């Protein structure tokens, strides 16, 4: 087994003529928490979506838990089982109850029994502090609650890595902290996390490393203390000035 949870080597991604990601090299160690930030259109969401093949990269290699991400469908499915993902817009299945949302993939993909899956789902729903909503439909929940369910749903697959794609960007301000609390809890338990976010307080508190991207390139990466207090590149300084300076 490889040392790295995620290992990306000189990866390039194009949308037609547009060069979306340029020579990305990224390693994420086991248990490491990485926060990716940068202006919109910098490719940070694209990068995280390439890791579980929601987007296809055109050059370079990606390995997740030592499994190469290539055109082999079995490998893709295995990587997706290992890496849970939380989306900006929650993407809960609206025609299923909260509990069904959480048990669907474990029963279908992990072949768990219904009872087993439901017990696990309830324990995760308790962990995100909404077990009492288990039999409601997503449309009956607030945004913050839906996002916590989305986290629980991903955890039900018992992934080794969690990918967060701007998990708080679509939330009303008063609901952001309830989601961040859950994520902090996860980080403290040692989960490997890659998180695209603008929540700089979260980055400072949780991240082992902060990565700054712009125009499809990684511009700078450093531990949060150094990144925030002593950024090297001009672009990082400008960005931080815009994000923190009000």
């Amino acid at each position: 087994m490889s040392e790295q949870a995620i290992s990306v080597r000189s990866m390039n991604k194009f949308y037609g003529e547009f060069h979306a990601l340029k020579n990305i090299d990224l390693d994420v160690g086991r248990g490491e928490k990485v926060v990716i930030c940068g202006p919109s259109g910098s490719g940070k969401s694209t990068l995280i979506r390439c890791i579980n093949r929601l987007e296809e990269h055109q050059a370079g290699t990606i390995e997740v838990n030592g499994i190469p991400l290539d055109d082999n469908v079995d490998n893709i499915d295995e990587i997706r089982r290992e890496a849970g993902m939380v989306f900006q817009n929650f993407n809960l299945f609206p025609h299923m109850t909260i509990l069904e949302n959480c048990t669907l993939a474990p029963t279908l993909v992990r072949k768990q029994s219904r009872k087993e899956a439901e017990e696990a789902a309830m324990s995760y729903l308790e962990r995100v502090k909404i077990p009492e909503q288990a039999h409601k439909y997503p449309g009956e929940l607030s945004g913050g609650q839906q996002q916590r369910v989305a986290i629980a749903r991903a955890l039900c697959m018992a992934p080794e890595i969690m990918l967060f794609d701007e998990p708080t960007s679509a939330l009303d301000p008063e609901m952001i902290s309830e989601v961040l609390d859950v994520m902090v809890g996860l980080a403290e338990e040692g989960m490997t996390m890659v998180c695209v976010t603008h929540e700089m307080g979260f980055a400072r508190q949780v991240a082992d490393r902060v990565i700054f991207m712009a125009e499809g390139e990684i511009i700078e990466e450093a531990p949060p203390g150094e990144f925030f207090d002593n950024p090297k590149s001009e672009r990082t300084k400008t960005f931080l000035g815009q994000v923190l300076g009000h």
Partner: protein
Amino acid sequence: MTDLPIQHTSAFSNIKRHYFATPLNSAITVLLAAFTAWILWGFFNWAFLEAIWGYGKNEECRAHEHGACWSFVATRWRIVLFGLYPFEEQWRSALACIVMLIVAILSCVPVFWNAKRLPVLWMVGFATFYILMRGGVFGLTPVVERDWGGLSLTVFIFASVCLLGMPLSIIFALLRRSELPWIARTMALVIDVIRSLPLLAIMFTFAIVLPFVLPGWAIGDKLYRVIVGYAIFFACYQAEIIRGGIQAIPSGQEEAAKALGMGYWHRIGYIVLPQAFRNALPPTINQFVITFKETSLVTIIGFFDILASGRAAAGTADWSFATIEMYVFVGLLFFVFVFSLSRYGAYLERRMSLNSR
């Protein structure tokens, strides 16, 4: 907190506001009300007050032109309902119809919405229907498909077309949005070609032309060829309806399923199709209604569906004056069926919107 006074509007003031706001408004209201009343009275008078009831009164009916002759229905209903089906065996046709009806009603009950129960229910239903109609086993006299007719034929064609066409339409819709361009484009072409042909031409081709092309063992009875042709026609329309339903699903839904490691068939079966059908419910019910009504086109290739049987029933010299009564009767049968279908569709919509509030 201050309570605002709630505006109570009485029924009378509402009527006044909506229908008698200005003198012109009032005039139009009165005129239309009078016109409606006149038409309703005319129909009521014809259908009930002046009507002639009872068995075999065609001579009285002929003499009495102002009222409906329900005696026609009382006397000739068996021809309308069963067509050319042998008279002594018509109880079988009736029973077969009732079996189909029960199966249809049962499959509307959520208890049966289950990948195992529904197919079993329909297979048992179809087998019972076929054995009753076709006979030849259990001491039942054989009756060939050519002699089937009336309501049971209409119901049989409709049910077979939907059951054959529905799975086919799902396959068409999925092929139509395949990631391989040549599959998607070929399917799009097939759908567009078949949709641009008249249903009549397709039925005719399958009934008359196909026997020259197909090997002998694959020909089957004319009835089944027509049903297959009609089912393909149905599937092309329904496939586009389903595709529309699929396109209305946010892309995040499939992405979330992918991110959970769910494979293609799991994504289609548990995430995409349930939501697509929910989105596409109103046009789907619409398609069922149209399909039911268009079964009447099978007359053109010599089958006695309920409309053709009706015409036959009013076709003899002693009842030839009763065409209006015949059309009213057949129309009523169509109405009962289509109206229940629409109400059921409305119930489904309500139920689904409750589920995903």
